[in-house]
């Protein structure tokens, strides 16, 4: 039996070992439990790493020189001024100094609507996670809201659950659960935890860019179901979720 090096095993796991060697290693693995265990101990889903890296890209600052100069070494303060001009040029400075067209969202619903507006079916359609991952994700999000939340609490007839995200609105936890309907139209269910307010019944709201929303609130939680769907359909989704959230 061949002695396989880490180099060959990693290449095998990454699908980069040539076909003949790959077959030989596969064969040896089947007959050598020790080798098989060793290879298994290195088997990971590398696409998870790639996806995580891609998501980190989304957090890249628009302007990497925006930090306050007082914590920077002197050479960096000088360098910063030079590099702002050198790297991004006058066009950037103009856009930086002139007032922005978009004013910040005035409330959490508007913030949710603006975020949701960026979603397309393609944003979510390729997201594949197993039941364990989704279960853990939901449970962790629940803990951030100080509630016990199970994946099954988020089931909605006519919608496929895709993922949960923990967001933040003015230092309040804001979570978004993303779904797709049968036509791959994105729909989101969001919960914000804020101060206790009077409970509110389901209410339809027209939001920006052709989106509709159904809102309600209970205790310290505000809820919204939002998407480019007609109000009646969203209302149907909201009723199911409201019933499941009744125990909060």
């Amino acid at each position, binding site marked *: 039996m061949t002695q396989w090096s880490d180099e060959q095993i990693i290449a095998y796991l990454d699908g980069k070992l040539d076909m003949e060697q790959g077959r030989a290693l596969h064969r040896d693995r089947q007959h050598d439990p020790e080798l098989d265990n060793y290879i298994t*101990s290195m088997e990971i889903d590398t696409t*998870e790493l*790639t996806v995580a*890296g891609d998501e980190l890209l989304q957090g890249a600052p628009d302007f*990497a020189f925006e930090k306050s100069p007082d914590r920077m070494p002197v050479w960096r303060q000088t360098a910063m001024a030079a590099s702002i001009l050198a790297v991004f040029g006058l066009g950037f400075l103009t856009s930086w100094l002139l007032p922005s067209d978009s004013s910040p969202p005035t409330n959490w619903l508007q913030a949710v609507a603006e975020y949701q507006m960026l979603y397309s079916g393609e944003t979510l359609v390729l997201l594949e*996670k197993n039941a364990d991952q989704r*279960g*853990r994700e939901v449970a962790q999000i629940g803990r951030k809201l100080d509630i016990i939340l*199970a994946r099954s609490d988020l089931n909605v007839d006519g919608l496929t659950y895709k993922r*949960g995200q923990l967001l933040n609105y003015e230092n309040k936890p804001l979570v978004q659960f993303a779904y797709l309907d049968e036509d791959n139209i994105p729909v989101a269910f969001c919960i914000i935890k804020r101060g206790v307010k009077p409970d509110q019944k389901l209410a339809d709201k027209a939001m920006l860019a052709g989106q509709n929303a159904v809102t309600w609130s209970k205790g310290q939680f505000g809820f919204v179901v939002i998407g480019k769907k007609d109000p009646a359909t969203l209302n149907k989704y909201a009723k199911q979720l409201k019933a499941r959230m009744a125990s909060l």
Partner: protein
Amino acid sequence: MFLKKRRQAIVKQELEQLRDRLWRFCMMRTGGNKPDADDLFQATALRALEKSHQFEPGSRFDNWAFTIAVSIWRNELRSRSVRLGQGVEEADETNLGADYRSGETNIFTSEVLTRITALPKGQRMAIVLVYIEGYSYREAAEILAVPIGTIMSRLATARQSLKAWAQEGAQEGAQEEAQERSQKGES
């Protein structure tokens, strides 16, 4: 003079295109410390412009810029270590407190990033270059200025650590979910 300006213009353009990836690379290189990553990004951009005459148009700008970032961070660390009286060895820095959960980062993603960040530096950068940046083993070795065998053994060890953490996480998650379900059933 004309050639120098032309080369600088090319580097500026390349920097703009590489900006997000370079920042991500700096984030991973500094162990998830955003202020340090921002500093490293700026210093790398500046150094690239200063050395734009050394960049060969048509060659891989990303490899070149990442190599600059690695070198700057290594030297920066060395000077910090000397100031702290810790000799000249580069610390195997990790930042277990790195928090990727701000903004829009998904919880599952932030867990993966936190695990990558918790890896020892050499393993972390091998993982980042090969599985996040998509470099070949050889290119990753060149950027980090280490033999290719070192990259492979770092990948092997890093993969074992990531696998072990994922298994632990899955077990804990299953236990927590079962516990929460039973609590719900009781209430």
